[in-house]
Every structure is written in C-alpha cells, then in structure tokens.
C-alpha cells in the first residue's frame, strides 16, 4: 500500500486533479452542444453491456471496482 502511493501514484493524482481544476474554466454555450447531446457521446455506452463487462473484469482481476461501483462483494466469486 505504501509502495503504491509514493512517487508515481502521487504524481498521477496531482496531474489528474490539476487537469480537472483547470478544465473548470471551459464554457460551452447551450446552443453549441448538439454533438455532446448525441447518444454516441455516452461515456459508458450501453449500460447493461457495460455492467456485463465490469462483472467479467471484476471477477477475473484483483484490480476491480472504483468506477462508481464497489470493488468486490455482492457475488460468490470473491
């Protein structure tokens, strides 16, 4: 655990937080969001298909969860 959060882990966290804070200055007016509202722009695509994939990855890899979903638990495989 300690190994994970030293060095590169902290650097990565800093880069992500800085990027997100900096992006808060961007403004896209309502009348220029035609493409953003298209169903193709969904971040996760089909929710049921995404849930099926997540179940596969979570049960076959130690590094599951965290994407707005619990890591482990809820099934007999972990």
């Amino acid at each position: 655990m300690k190994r994970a959060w030293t060095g590169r882990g902290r650097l990565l966290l800093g880069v992500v937080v800085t990027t997100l804070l900096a992006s808060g200055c961007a403004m896209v007016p309502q009348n220029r969001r035609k493409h953003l509202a298209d169903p193709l722009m969904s971040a996760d695509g089909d929710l049921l298909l995404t849930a099926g994939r997540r179940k596969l990855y979570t049960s076959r890899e130690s590094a599951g969860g965290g994407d707005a979903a619990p890591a482990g638990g809820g099934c007999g495989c972990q």
Partner: protein
Amino acid sequence: MRLSVVAAAAALGLVSPPPARAEPILEAPPPAPQIDQAVIVHAPAYQIQSFAVRFTYFDQDGLGYQSAAGPISGPGSERTTVAEPLGEVVATIGDRLTQRIVTSVDVVTAASPNHKLYGLPVGTPVDVISSPSRINEAEQIDSDTTYAWSRTTNFGVHADYHLEEPLESWGLGMFATHAFADDNTVLSASLFQLVDWFDYFHLDGKRYGRDVRTTTNVNVGVTQLLTPTTIVLGSYGFTTQGGTLTNTWNSVPLSDGTRGAEIVPRRRDRHALSGRLVEWLPWQGALRLGYRFYADSWGSVAHTVDANVSQRVGQLTLDFGARYHRQSAVDFFGIVFDPAGTGFRTADSDLEAFTARAVSAGARWDQPIGHRGHQIYFALTGERYFRSNDLHVDFVSGAVGWQQ
C-alpha cells in the same frame, strides 16, 4: 373598432350582457384569465421510458494453481461457462422520479472444483464439493430511484439483492449529482454498502456454518464539457472490505505434496482513480479513451487503458473496442507453500501478476416505429479476453429493446 371590456366579454360569452337600462355603465373588473385545461401538459403518473432484454454467454477456459481440478502440485482447470439473461425497465413516476430496475439470472457451471479430484488429469470433468457448484443459479435484482430535486440537482437511492445457493447479498446506497456553470460541470458522489452472508465450506467439503463479508464504497466524480465536441470525466473510488475475503474453496499447493486452504487478510482497502475522454468525430462517430489506476492494501497495483470507437452508418451503429490491463501480484501470492506456515497465502491466478488484453466488436440497429419518436433496437456484441497467465474468456451478448 373599439369595444369596452364588458362588451367584448359579452361577445365572447364570458359574462352576462349589461341590463338595458339607462344607468351609468360602470367599468367591470377584468375577468380572471381563463385557462384552457386542454393545453396544460401534466406528467403522466407512471410512464415506461424504455425496456430491454439482454442475453450474455461467457465461456472461460484456463489453468490456475488455486484450482484442484488437476495435478496435486500443478495448476487445475478453471473451465466454466456462465449464461446470463437479464432485463431492464426504466420508468418515470410523475415529474421528478425516475425508476430503473434490472433483474438478472446467472447460470454458472463448475463454480467450485472438487478437491477429491486430486491427481486426476487436467480436463477431467470438474465435480463439486457442494451441490451449488454443479450448476449454480444466481439471481439478482437492482433498483435505482432518482429524484430530481431541482433542474441541476438529483438525488438517488440504490438497492440490490443477490441470491445464490451458498450466498446472499444485500446492497444499499445513495448517490447525488449537481450541475453548475450552466451545466458545463457536473459533480457526482455516491456511497454504497454491501453485506454478503454465505456458507463457509472447507476443502474437505464440510460446511462450517455461515460467515460474513462487508464492503463499503465511496465514489466522487466530475464531468466537464471541454469543447463543443469534447467531454472529460474523472473519478476516484475507495472501497474497504472486511470479514472473510476468501471464497473458502480456493486451495494452495504445499511442498509436501498436499494442498491447504487459502489464507488472506480479513481487511482490504482498494483505491481506483480513473479518467475518460469522449470526443465527437465529424463523420458521425465518437471516440472514447480511458485510463485507470488501481492500488490496494494487499500490494496489488494496476494500470488499465481502453479505447472504443463508435461509427453510425444510417440506422446502424458499429462499435470497436480494445483494452489493456497490467497488474502486479498481491504480496502473499505463490505457487507452493510451507505446510507449517501460518502466514497469508494464495495461489489464485486472479491475484497473480499478469497482463490482460481484450478486443471487442459490436453492432446495433435502431428502427423508428410510429410517429411519436419511439424506436426499437437490436444489438449484438462479441469480445475475447485473454490473459498472459493462461486464461481466456469469450463472451457474446445480444439485446432487444424499446425506448421513447
């Protein structure tokens, strides 16, 4: 021509005409606005927004040292199949409530190999230590209720229940989203609690009563519109688990030629940090790129990248995806252990250091029906997932749905 208010009202039949007497005509107060009930749109009390049924079939094959379906000191079979039908309904209740319900059934073969198969060759049909393992049916129902507190703020409650023969699981959670900066930025947060209650089977097949595992999960995230064609998302999730975290039937090879039980810590803290970019492509397509960093208190660190392209061709949408995952082993992983040892130990191939790749392709056909914007769709997706430590999973998934 100018009419007095009263005359005009009389002409419209809204008030009685003035009496035909030579009395001074008083200006009548203006009539209250008349509301035409026919033009008021009320939200229906209950309206189905969409429903879908999906069937997914997983076919897994490979070898792992935690499985006893093979040589005593060698890796055993991890062969299993999962057939999973599921259904989803989304409905609105009045103006502010949205309800989503998902039910699924997993039919799993060979969930727990029989340790009486020691020494039999790989490929021997996997028997079981308990009846659930022959064919294990797992049922789950998930419910998400979202309440629109205001135009920019939503609150929600999640509940789920999972049942399979040796395990029951209850989940409860809450989530919230808030949009600001003219909806350019959306913050989200969620909290989930899971409790698993299951039979504790030892390697000899004996049942040692019931045991418990708890999982608590917190997530925070942000979605930001960057440009008229670009969205970025970032999220952090923390999960802490406690209780019996082994599945109780995993075993480890021992140096004396026998096998012993897997022993893992009773607590695990897991961190996941992820970012995603979605970019509109000018030829009616979209590109998604994602990265995820993971670390936990068992010593496993992982990096995952994925890319997906969607392309619309008329009513057909094509999807192509690829994923690469690399993880380190947990601190106490091994493939042979001292029989006298009392420390943590696992030979589970899922906890080993490996790389995993996945490629997928899918197609979806949208067919408008009627004149009210309704449509039905048909979707088919296939994926191949393969790991560097001798395991692969093929899955194919098909869906039919209707939506407004």
